[in-house]
C-alpha cells in the first residue's frame, strides 16, 4: 500500500470513529460557540470594529478549537493499544501521519464553517462577499495547523501532560501561518479582494504548508518509531 492509499485509509477510519463518538467534535464546536458569544458581549463592537478584529478573533478560536481536536488525534489510539497495532501494520509512517492530518483538517474545517455564519449573525458582518478566497485561506491555514499539530500530537501522545504540552509546542511554530491567516481573513471578511500586499501573505501561507508537509513526510518514521 502506498502513502496516498494509507492516508485515505487512516483518514477514513479516524473520521468514521469521530463521527460515531463525536467526542472532540462536540467539544470543539461547543467551545467555539461559547467563545463567539462571550466575545460578542465582551467587546460590544460595531460593524467596523468587528471587521477589524474578525481575523484575530476567529483564528484565536480556531486555534484553540484545533488543539482540542489535535489532542485526541493520537490519544484515541491508546485504548486497547491500538497505536501499537497501527504502527505494526504495513502502512507507511507518512501515510499514518498524513491520514491523521487530513482527518484533523476536515474536522477543523467543519468547525470553522459552522462558526462563520454564527460569527456573521452575532457581529452583524456580511462575511460572504469574498467567500471563495476566504475558503482558500481557511483550507491553507487549517492544513498547516493540522499537519504540524498531528506531528506534535504523535510526539506528545505518551506524555501525562500532553493536553498542556501540545499547545506549548505547536503555537510558536504556527506563528507565521497564523499571522498570514489573521491578516488575510480580516481583509477578505472586510469585503476587499486580494491585491499585491495580501498576495505576499498568501504566498507565505502556501510556502508554510509546502515546507511543513514535506518535512512531515521526511520525518514521519522518526516521529512514529523513534
Amino acid at each position: 500500500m502506498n502513502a496516498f492509499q494509507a492516508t485515505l485509509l487512516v483518514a477514513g477510519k479516524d473520521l468514521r470513529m469521530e463521527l460515531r463518538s463525536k467526542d472532540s467534535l462536540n467539544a470543539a464546536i461547543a467551545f467555539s460557540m461559547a467563545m463567539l458569544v462571550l466575545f460578542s458581549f465582551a467587546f460590544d463592537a460595531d460593524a467596523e470594529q468587528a471587521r477589524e478584529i474578525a481575523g484575530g478573533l476567529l483564528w484565536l478560536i480556531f486555534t484553540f478549537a484545533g488543539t482540542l481536536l489535535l489532542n485526541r488525534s493520537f490519544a484515541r489510539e491508546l485504548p486497547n493499544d491500538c497505536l501499537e497495532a497501527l504502527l505494526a501494520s504495513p502502512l507507511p509512517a507518512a501515510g499514518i501521519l498524513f491520514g491523521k492530518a487530513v482527518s484533523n483538517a476536515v474536522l477543523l474545517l467543519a468547525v470553522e464553517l459552522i462558526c462563520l455564519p454564527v460569527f456573521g449573525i452575532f457581529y452583524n458582518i456580511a462575511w460572504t462577499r469574498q467567500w471563495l478566497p476566504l475558503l482558500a485561506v481557511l483550507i491553507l491555514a487549517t492544513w498547516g495547523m493540522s499537519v504540524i499539530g498531528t506531528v506534535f500530537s504523535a510526539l506528545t501522545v505518551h506524555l501525562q501532560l500532553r493536553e498542556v504540552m501540545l499547545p506549548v509546542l505547536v503555537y510558536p511554530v504556527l506563528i507565521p501561518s497564523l499571522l498570514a491567516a489573521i491578516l488575510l481573513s480580516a481583509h477578505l471578511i472586510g469585503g476587499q479582494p486580494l491585491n499585491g500586499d495580501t498576495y505576499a501573505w498568501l504566498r507565505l501561507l502556501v510556502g508554510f504548508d509546502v515546507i511543513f508537509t514535506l518535512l512531515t513526510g521526511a520525518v514521519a518514521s522518526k516521529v512514529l518509531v523513534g
Partner: protein
Amino acid sequence: MMAVEARRLTRYFGVQAALRQASFAITPGSCVALLGRNGAGKTTLLRLLAGLQSPSEGTLTVFGKDPLMPATRQMIGFLGHGSGLYDELTAEENLLLAARMAGLPGKRERVKDWLRRVQLDRVSTQRPHEFSRGMRQRLALARVLLSQPKLLLLDEPLTALDDRATAIVRDLLSQAQQAGATILMSTHHLSEGLQLANQVLLLHRGSVSYSGERTEVMLQDPASVYALCGEGA
C-alpha cells in the same frame, strides 16, 4: 533463510538495558515459546521484531529483512498486551480495517470466514467493548491471522482466558503453524506454552539463557525451564 536472526541485539531504555547482546535464530515454521520472568526482556524483543522500536545495538532480521521496513511488516502479525481493536468500530469493521491495511484481496469474504472461524459471526455487528475477554482475544487473533502472516508475534495471548477460550486460541495457533507460519509467543503459562511450542527461547535479565528444542523434561516439569538460567522454579 532464518525466520528471525538476532546478533548481539541490545536495547537500552535510558541507561537500563532491557536486552543485552542477545543472539539467536529461529527456523521458519517453528513455534517458539518465549519464556522469562517479568522484566526479562520478552516484550522488548517482540516490539523490536514488530518494528515498533529500533535496536540500540546489534542487528535483527525477519526473513533476511529489516523489520522497520513496511514491506517486512507485511509478513508480520503482532498481537501485544492490548487487543488492538477499536471500540468505536464493530467486530466486522475492525477486521475489514485490518484487511485493508494489509492490502488483502477478497476482503469481505475473508473477514466473514474469519468471523466464522473464531465463532463470532453471530455478533459481527457488535462492538468489541461489548465482548467478554475471551471473545475480544479471539477477535484480536483473527485481526492478526487474517493476513496469514509468515511470522506471528504474540505477547501473552493466553493471559486471563478461561479453558474454553484457551482451547480455541490454541487451535487457531496450531492451524496457523500448520499453514506454515512461524510463531514466537511469550507466555507465563508454562504448561500451555510448552505444549504448543517445539522450541524454547529463554530470556534472563535481557540475555538469552537458552535457545533450542523444547525437551520432554520441560513438558513433564515446566517450571524446570527456569533452572536453565540458574533460577529455581
